């Protein structure tokens, strides 16, 4: 007997919620970024879990895709954050309000 799917989904939901709260309450762009990664990985976990439940590889393939895309996104995102930090000596997203209406 394998572990029931609900265990995986509960962990995944907890990770996703932690990530979401992190995105919403933190000001530091780096922390927000890490929280976003947490959300992504929560989704990856549920994808892999469903893949095992259905005995098909589609979900795992999709998880790999999302990891690759996430890696690329990290590169771009970190570069932006570093550049912003260099110019403004701050990584707080609340200071970046130039484009407000």
């Amino acid at each position, binding site marked *: 007997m394998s572990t029931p799917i609900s265990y995986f989904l509960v962990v995944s939901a907890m990770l996703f919620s932690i990530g*979401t709260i992190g*995105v*919403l*309450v933190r000001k530091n762009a780096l922390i*927000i970024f890490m929280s976003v990664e947490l959300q992504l990985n929560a989704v990856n976990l549920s994808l892999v879990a469903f893949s095992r439940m259905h005995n098909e590889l589609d979900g795992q393939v999709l998880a790999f895709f999302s990891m690759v895309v996430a890696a690329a996104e990290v590169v771009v995102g970190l570069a932006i954050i570093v550049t912003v930090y260099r110019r403004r000596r701050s990584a707080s*997203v*609340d200071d*970046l*309000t*130039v*484009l*407000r*209406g």
Partner: protein
Amino acid sequence: MLDLIWLVPALPLAGAAVNLLLGRRLGKAAGRLATALVALAFAVSVGALLDLLAHGSEERVHVTRLFDWISAGSFSVDVAFLVDPLSITMALVVTGVGALIHLYAIGYMDNDPRIGTFFAYLNLFVFFMLVLVLADNYLLLFVGWEGVGLCSYLLIGFWYERPTAASAATKAFVTTRIGDAGMLLGIVLIFVHVGSLDFGVVFDEAAGELTQGAATAISLLLLAGAIGKSAQLPLHVWLPDAMEGPTPVSALIHAATMVTAGVYLVIRSHVLFEVSGTALTVVLVIGLISALYAALASIGQFDIKRALAYSTMSQIGFMFFAAGMGFYTGAMLLLVCHAFYKALLFLTAGNVLHGLHDETDMRRMGGLRADMPVSTVWFAIGALSLAGIPPLAGFFAKDHIVGFASTSGRDLAWILATIGAFLSALYIARPLFLTFFGRRRNEERAHEAPGPMQAPLAALALLTVVGGLVLGVTPETGRLAVFLEPVVGAVEHGEGALRDGALIAISVVVAVAAVIVAYWIWASERVNWQAFPERQPELAGWLANAFYLNALYAWLVQFPGKGLGRALRVVDERVIDGAVNGVADEVEDASHLAPAIQRGFVRTYALAFLLGAVALLLFLGLRIV
């Protein structure tokens, strides 16, 4: 040579093209090229004249068809040139006097940086003028007609840096346009009634089938064009202002050729005018009134060129007067002779302007005969010719016309014309005495014009002296009258209240008396003419401002025009702009709502995403359940 007649307009056209494209590079050679081409056109015209003379007098009509121009249904127009005594006379005047004026302009425009452009325009003008006089149908004539108007505009405004020149050019163009609109309607009406625009067809039909009413309508509409172009009342206001152009332009376009196009049109269309009858009377009345009006206005001018401009208008009035009496050969004789002596007068005035550094006010001239003896002789010949002193050209031309009024039984017209002749002699002797005789009123020493500028004047002076003797000693048997007879008919010698000898005597006495009066007033120092405007401010004002017709027109056109403009401005600002701006304002107001939710805080957006996603999920979940 008759088949080569297309060369006559083509040569100046080529000159215009070359000077327009290469004028800058040619430099001073531009003027020589332009002059040579017009002179060549004159030579071809002379050749055509000789060919024409070789034929019998009734066969002197030659039409050269070049190509189909417009062909649409029953309407077809060729580009065709008509050579007959009337058109070749005009062509000879245009190219002959034109070449002399071109020659003069080489010296006159010597220092102008845009000399190439100037000669290009001048050549283009000669081209269009030749198209006008050689055209074999009304449409081609109209092309030339509009073309000379364009060149007139370009040349009046040649010194466009001066605001007065630019506005004078516009005024000339717009004013003549009023007449041209009527003329175009007249041409359409000819097509409606006759079905063709060829001169031959139109005149054949007109003599037989055209109703009097139709002929009157056509003639009066054509006359509107003629009045505009020839600066007759009531469309004359542009001519005095046109003197803003360079002096050779005034001589060529606004004295010798273009302004006489109206007279040519009336004579060319005389068949239509005669069928109408009424139209001919209108021509007579307009001509006579214009002649007297312009003569009085000329006496009030102190600008030498404006005085000459009103004199031109007055002389053309005499031509219209003659044409209105059916005395077409007399009108043509005056046209030709006037081209000689008025070109001479204008170019001599150009010498004075040249010598005095563009001073045009005669109050600051006087006694110039010491500085400019040769120019004095030229101006005296021209002025005395215009005044009607025998045996100069003007004497014969004017005497024939005034005399014809009497011999054809129009006694009132004769009296008015005689008064007009007296005034003509007075107004033209006035600039002669004011400029060259009397006391010197300018410290500056004038310098005489150089030789190359005097040569064309000598030629024109010679023509002025012998022109009348050669072309028309008597109204009926003069060379020009006999030559033109196949086109316009013979002159009938009537019996008036006075005998011929008496008429000539009166004419001479009137002219001599006027010149003596002019000398007494303006050169003898016995009359203080300079105080006249103070003594008689009203009369002087009426004369100097040409009876305030300019002001009247300005008032008539300006007030309704400005009122309309203001009304339209209100409509534009309130209604049209109001609608457009109103829509824009509403959109802008609405757009102020959007920034309320665009606070710039990333977390707000993230929260919005989350709430949206939750809402969507709830919605989907509830539906599935």
